């Protein structure tokens, strides 16, 4: 332990460094480039992500190890989430460049911020120390605050950013307060030592309960679970659609990683105390998300509420708490990445936020409308799509652990969710076009991303074995 910065430390930190360096490089080059040639920034972000992927692959060859005296842990858990972040960032980069040109806000910072957010997310998946986790969370959140307000000329975008910033900062504060209590209990910020300290106390120890209350408030806010979901619909609607997709996927999955690290790590022994809270949050998320989505007129708001409902399903996996439940979370999260980005990228192609803008879309662009049906079926959780497997595992986990009522609640909301998802299908296929929005001249990147997300969403549903193998052991200790 004499060395301050060993090779192992370096190896564990490298992906985050690469992401940050490429992010800074993009900021720098942006001031040098002509406005017209900004799409070449894509040539910087994609190699950056590729090198990160190479490093992640190398980490995967080594197996589990810790760095910085246990502040970072490279294990299947961190690798699984980091790969998801990487895929998310690649897809977001692909769908963004044309979108930004159309919105006349093609600034290089955008890509830099995407990389910075991912760099922060890296610490959420990898960190096993409170300060590291908190700084990772704030790095990511700060990038998102800026990204949400990226359309400077649009008031909705600014409003969304302000709402997100104020509420987000507030929730971060509460989370930090919870962290401070954990430190107070254990006298250390390392999760492994905190786990020992908490296990030594009774589950309903007042200090532990206060820590659980504050931490779950902060984390549930970040994954946009009810009752801390208020920011999500407004922010999702106001943000640029590509950012909405990134927010709905990247931010939620990264915060999910944080939640799992904390509740399966140091707080695992206090399950009795937090489980009722999580049940409450899960059922509330399912109810609020699914019921509020039914009456929306904006497709983006509809997907925002649906993402609240998805947070509920992910929490159900945590509540079940068994091996199947964790596999379920992994599979659900994996499916969620592709089906959600897919659905949002079709909205980008439609170039309209309202459900009415989709009217008659299938006749004009069947190549986009048909994959959209797949994404929506997957979001609802119908076979043969990836979303079905996620729900299948979650329900199986609930039944295995004897929580039949929760399984029934989750299942009933599948039927309700189909109703609003199919409002989009109805608009695309069954209704005649009401207005002629010139469809966005789509880009190669958008088409690539559409093909990839569509194939994976459907392919993982028809032949899921390889995907299940990938996800099977990633979240198990």
């Amino acid at each position, binding site marked *: 332990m004499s060395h301050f910065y060993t090779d192992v430390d370096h190896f564990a930190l490298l992906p985050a460094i690469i992401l940050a360096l490429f992010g800074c490089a993009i900021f720098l080059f942006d001031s040098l480039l002509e406005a017209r040639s900004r799409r070449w920034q894509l040539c910087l972000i994609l190699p950056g992500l590729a090198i990160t992927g190479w490093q992640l692959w190398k980490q995967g060859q080594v197996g589990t190890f810790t760095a910085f005296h246990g502040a970072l842990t490279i294990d299947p858990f961190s690798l699984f989430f980091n790969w998801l972040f990487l895929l998310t960032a690649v897809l977001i980069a692909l769908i963004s460049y044309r979108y930004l040109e159309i919105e006349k806000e093609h600034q290089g910072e955008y890509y830099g911020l995407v990389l910075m957010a991912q760099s922060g997310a890296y610490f959420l998946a990898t960190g096993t120390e409170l300060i590291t986790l908190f700084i990772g969370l704030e790095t990511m959140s700060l990038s998102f605050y800026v990204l949400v307000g990226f359309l400077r000329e649009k008031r909705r975008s600014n409003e969304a950013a302000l709402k997100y910033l104020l509420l987000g900062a507030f929730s971060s504060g509460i989370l930090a307060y919870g962290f401070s209590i954990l430190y107070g209990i254990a006298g250390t910020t390392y999760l492994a030592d905190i786990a020992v300290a908490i296990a030594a106390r009774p589950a309903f120890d007042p200090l532990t309960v206060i820590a659980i209350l504050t931490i779950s408030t902060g984390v549930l806010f970040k994954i946009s679970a009810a009752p801390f979901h208020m920011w999500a619909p407004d922010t999702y609607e106001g943000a640029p659609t590509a950012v909405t997709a990134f927010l709905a996927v990247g931010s939620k999955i990264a915060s999910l990683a944080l939640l799992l690290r904390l509740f399966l790590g140091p707080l695992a022994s206090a399950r009795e105390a937090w489980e009722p809270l999580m049940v409450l949050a899960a059922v509330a998320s399912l109810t609020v998300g699914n019921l509020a989505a039914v009456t929306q007129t904006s497709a983006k708001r509809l997907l925002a509420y649906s993402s609240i409902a998805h947070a509920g399903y992910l929490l159900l996996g945590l509540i079940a708490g068994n091996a199947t439940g964790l596999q379920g979370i992994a599979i659900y999260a994996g499916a969620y990445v592709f089906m959600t980005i897919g659905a949002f990228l079709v909205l980008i192609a439609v170039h309209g936020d309202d459900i009415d803008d989709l009217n008659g879309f299938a*006749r004009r662009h069947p190549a986009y409308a048909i994959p959209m*049906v797949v994404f929506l*079926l997957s979001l609802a959780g*119908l*076979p*043969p799509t990836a979303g079905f497997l996620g729900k*299948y595992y979650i*329900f*199986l986990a609930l*039944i*295995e652990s004897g929580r039949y009522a929760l*399984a*029934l609640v989750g*299942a*009933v909301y*599948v*039927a309700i969710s*189909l*109703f609003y998802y*199919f409002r989009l*299908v*109805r608009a695309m*296929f*069954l*209704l005649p076009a009401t207005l002629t929005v010139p469809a966005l001249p789509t880009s190669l990147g958008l088409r690539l991303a559409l093909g990839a997300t569509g194939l994976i969403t459907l392919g993982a549903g028809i*032949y*899921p*074995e390889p995907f*299940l*193998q990938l996800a*099977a052991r990633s979240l198990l200790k």
Partner: protein
Amino acid sequence: MPWLSSLILLPLLGVLVLPFIPTSLVRWWANGILLAGLALAAPLWQHFDRAATGYQFVERLPWIPSLGAQYLLGLDGISLLLVLLTSLLGPLASLASWNAIEDRTKEFYAMLLLLQAGMLGLFLAQDLLLFFVFFEVVLVPMYFLIGIWGAERRLYAAIKFFLYTLAGSVVLLLGIIGLYWLGSQQLPRPTFELAELLKLRLPLDAQRWLFWAFFAGFAIKVPMVPFHTWLPDAHTEAPTAGSVLLAGVLLKMGTYGLIRFSLPLFPEAAREAAPILAVLSIVAILYGALISLVQADWKRLVAYSSVSHMGFCTLGLAALNANGLAGSVLQQINHGISTSLLFLLVGFAYERRHTRKIADYGGLAVVMPRFAFVFAVAVFSSAGLPLLNGFIGEFVILQGTFTANRTWAAFAVLGVVLGAAYLLWLYQRTMLGEIRHEANRGLADLSLREWATVLPLLGLALAIGIYPAPYFAVLERPVLELVGRLAR
């Protein structure tokens, strides 16, 4: 040769190639594929070994090994009849749409082919998860068939159909998961294979829960009263091909599920539930018939008659004896034949007059004698006139019911009388008497294509009615096996 897989893959192949077929040839292509499917399925009838127990032509591939789900297809007598019915109704429904569908033909035939693959897969799957996938897959093309090419209230009918069925099938999914979980504790490895799950010894309490969970999925599909309210809307608003396949095949998914899964897997719970099933069936028979009597809409009348006729099918199941079960399966086939005929003929009339109101017709026998003749056969077949198929099915079901419980049989017989009443009255109001509307005077009789659509069904109705023994011979083994399980 993977015979059963090719039955499913052929229509799927048809869909994949469809985008590259010129629009003018799409009809030929789709009809050709469906006819080829029929030609492929028909020899199963010869090669099927009637003396063998268990499943035949079994195909087994690992599908999701980490769950224990397999791609497992197989055929017994019950599946055989339903597969043949589906293979026949597919091309007929497609042929009936030749002129009726002018808008978005490519999408239409793509949906028909997709539907065909899903329906065949459902009757062939011997793995519960695979079955469930097909159970859900069928919903999407039918949603589009109703929603795009349906009548005025198509949007409402399409989503209502989808949501109702889905609400039941999510509960069915929980049941399947529960059964899988119980199985994983008793069996050496977790599996969805039906033959393996049949070996389970389930406590009565678990059987009850699972039985009702499965029941929720299947009863909505049949549909049994009080879950039937999606049916009249969906059947009435769907285009002719959709109505034919809905009534002819999709409803059978419910009764097939009950006889294939619910009864053999949970025999004790089934014995307990039989009286409830019987009462619901009798209510369906009588209620469906009474509602049919007062319908002013020709197609809606036929739709409600399905509620009544499917009541007979579920009543046969509730009898839990050989006659009841065999009669129920045969009656499912019969209902597929006669109700499809009725829907086809309503469709033909609608194409000529663009109205479904019974009052707008009358005296059609004068201008369309051949149409009136075919309609008469369809009506008699549906009403259960001896020498036609409907009589055999209803008779055997009533025989089985009588053995099980005389009161049930007494009430059900009332349904036969009412059935004759509303069908014959319908015939009288549409076909007989004077021509009351000038528009009806110049109507053309059945065309060659229309004859081709109805003739196979007419032939079958007569064949089953006169000599039903071959069909019972096919059913004997699986039904006796099931009765053995239920008596245990």
